[in-house]
């Protein structure tokens, strides 16, 4: 007897989706995605640090915070807590881009008028 299409396979059948056997893989992939995001923040922070230590240092600190956030335990369904973590990423990115705008017009680059 085979389960209907799209249903979770019965116990005596091997699951066609490995995550039926180990749903933790989704969590692991998500942690890795947080790690990549933290690395992106760190790279940005390090690049900015070279020209503007005052702006770059907070970004580097933030990358550590992002790395930590990805590892906090938390039920997948703990909606508001997770939503706030994601909102932090968005708010930070917008703040960084505002700083980038200011820097791009006032920064020590070659004179912007040329």
């Amino acid at each position, binding site marked *: 007897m085979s389960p209907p299409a799209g249903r979770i396979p019965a116990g005596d059948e091997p699951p066609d989706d490995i995550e039926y056997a180990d749903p933790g893989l989704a969590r692991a992939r998500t942690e890795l995605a947080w790690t*990549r995001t933290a690395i992106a923040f760190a790279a940005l922070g390090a690049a900015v640090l070279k020209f503007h230590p005052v702006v770059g240092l907070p970004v580097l600190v933030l990358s550590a915070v992002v790395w930590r956030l990805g590892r906090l335990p938390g039920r997948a369904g703990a909606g508001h807590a997770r939503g706030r973590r994601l909102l932090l990423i968005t708010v930070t990115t917008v703040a960084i881009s505002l700083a980038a705008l200011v820097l791009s017009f006032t920064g020590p680059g070659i004179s912007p008028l040329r």
Partner: protein
Amino acid sequence: MTDQPGGRDPATTGTDDDGTEPDARYTFANERTFLAWSRTALALVVGGLAITQLLPPFPGIPWGRHIIGTPLILLGSAVSVISYLEWKASRRALRHGLPLPRSRLPQILAIAVAVIGLIAAAFALLSAARVP
């Protein structure tokens, strides 16, 4: 950004947790999609900043670097905000068993990058023509 009922509401309405909890894998996948767009947004900001700060100026084109770089920085900001709104809309759809809303980000990103790329190509050609 969304056609979902009430999808535009801020996080303060307190109605985000209605519906039923979806399969955790969908929740995680939604979160990973948001994180991937966030990295894209960061890359756009870095690219725009690098263009305005590190690129040598285009000869004979005043503000040329800023004309290319500033839209990239703004685009990064927009991608970041829109991806959060779409994460919220997808989460709502998942909780109510509705079809996932279509993402607008691929279209926005493709058009914006294409336009900025064309402008950059024009600047490169123009400045090359001015240099003997």
